[in-house]
């Protein structure tokens, strides 16, 4: 049985564990009852325990969040409930009024990205926009995007410099940016033992931050070093929090979970460009729907000489590089 802990890794590897959400939820509800009663008993007996209404509310919300299911298998009602809780928690804990979407993938859309290595000048405006847009941890200085400065004529990540800090573009160099490539056959998804990361119908690989156990297998599996780990609770000043959030995207993360670029799922599912593409001052970033033959990304793929990184691994990244 998949409920048997000894059987978990084998079952979880192919995801069959997750096909029995009712059993799990049923069991967790029983646990919740016990835990809630225990918490109330403890808090009633502890003189120093905070007892304002707000603190009680937060404590209950936190417990309900703790035992909720995997987002992928939630009903619409359950998603609305957890989003309500998360918005309230963000308000209390971070002092930010946020709106968390649960927008699903648009039908007939698979996102693709193209990066013009002739145009990129290494200004890192995309990095700046990404940090602000995705509420990245200011304390640990998490960045999804790396811009590599490389010598003309050679693509060599061992010799490339990602920490350049001088006037750019530098003579005799070009710039190549990496981020999550939203692979069509993502190795990170395959290795997740708990099914906390999966690929959405529009091609974006997402993470349920609350389901992630922080084992970091996905980080080891990703050939592109696209994922980032939260060693501590991310810190974002309340006034800098981007309130436009998505459950699978830029909502508040917690210590011990993995995160990564989602092509700004909260923006792109509403027809907008990812923050990096919008911020790019050189127009090096092309984003669009791969299934739309009239899209710019398709024009690039049809008319430009494109390549992808580590194509021999057959991860099929949806992120192409091209030059003028």
């Amino acid at each position, binding site marked *: 049985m998949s409920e048997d802990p000894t059987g978990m890794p084998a079952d979880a590897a192919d995801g069959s564990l997750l096909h029995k959400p009712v059993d799990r939820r049923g069991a967790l509800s029983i646990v919740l009852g016990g835990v809630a009663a225990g918490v109330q008993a403890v808090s009633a007996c502890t003189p120093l325990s905070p007892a304002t209404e707000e603190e009680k509310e937060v404590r209950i919300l936190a417990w309900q969040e703790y035992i909720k299911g995997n987002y992928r298998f939630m009903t619409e009602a359950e998603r609305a409930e957890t989003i309500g809780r998360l918005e309230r928690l963000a308000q209390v804990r971070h002092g930010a009024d946020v709106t968390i979407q649960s927008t699903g993938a648009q039908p007939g859309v698979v996102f693709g990205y193209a990066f013009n290595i002739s145009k990129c000048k290494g200004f890192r405006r995309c990095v700046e926009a990404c940090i602000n847009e995705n509420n990245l941890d200011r304390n640990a200085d998490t960045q999804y995007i790396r811009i590599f400065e490389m010598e003309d004529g050679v693509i060599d990540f061992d010799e490339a410099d*990602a920490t350049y800090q001088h006037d750019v573009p530098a003579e005799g160099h070009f710039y190549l940016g990496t981020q999550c490539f939203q692979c069509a056959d993502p190795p990170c998804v395959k290795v997740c033992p708990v099914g906390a990361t999966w690929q959405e119908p529009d091609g974006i690989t997402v993470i349920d931050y609350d389901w992630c156990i922080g084992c970091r297998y996905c980080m080891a599996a990703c050939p592109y070093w696209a994922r980032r780990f939260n060693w501590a609770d991310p810190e974002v000043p309340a006034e800098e929090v981007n309130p436009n959030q998505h459950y699978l995207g830029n909502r508040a993360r917690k210590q011990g979970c993995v995160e990564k670029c989602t092509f700004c799922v909260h923006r792109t599912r509403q*027809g907008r460009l990812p923050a990096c593409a919008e911020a790019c001052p050189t127009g090096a970033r*092309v984003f669009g729907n791969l299934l739309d033959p009239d899209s710019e990304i398709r024009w690039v793929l049809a008319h430009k000489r494109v390549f992808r990184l580590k194509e021999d691994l057959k991860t099929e990244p949806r992120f192409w590089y091209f030059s003028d």
Partner: protein
Amino acid sequence: MTRFPARLAAVGLAATCLCSGCEALHPPRWERRENRTPVSGVDSAVPPPDSTREPGVLGTVEADPVDRWKGPGGRQFEVARRSAAPEAGHSRRFGSITLPIALRSRAAGLSQYPCSSCHLGRKLVMANQRITDAHNDIQPVHPEQTGAVCSTCHSAEDVQLLTLKSGERARMDDSYRLCAQCHFTQAETWAGGAHGKRLDGWQGRRVVMACTDCHDPHTPAVTPRIPFRAPQIQRSRGHDR
């Protein structure tokens, strides 16, 4: 010498009234435009920007219906125009054009627009005026490289318009028509979507920046800048984990 006070007054007027938008530091074009107050009321050909757009993004201006570039592949650009036999030669020359394109207004971002404020009668040449007097922010690198003079691109008869090799005139907003005369490969990739920058979103109407939104027409090359701060990663060479 008798003209000097008048000239000085004209320059002073230009400096005080019109040059307030000239930044001393000259940030790059794409940043320069953000906080500009669009000029309105003088030239009715330039509609005011759409105030419903999100802040920070200048309003877009629909291309004048007259200005249509009949496109490659039988498609039509909103921004494009080809007066005679539109479909014929063009579809081959410019490759397959996909979607209608809308341009952001160039004129609304020009600090000294409309030109007729100084260029009374809209003539290009002003008596006894040197270009450095009122347009001292212009570094004519590109004209020097190509041997061009003002009237190569600017219409001598109407300074608010651009002039093409064919004798046609184009609006300031339609700089792509001027640039495409020489830079046709760039124009093709721009039309297709590989060059230039799309605004607003990947879905819906395709609003793009035209050539001079990014490239200073007189100094087109991108100048070096200081990048955003570097990541704090252990391994500076190659990928970090």
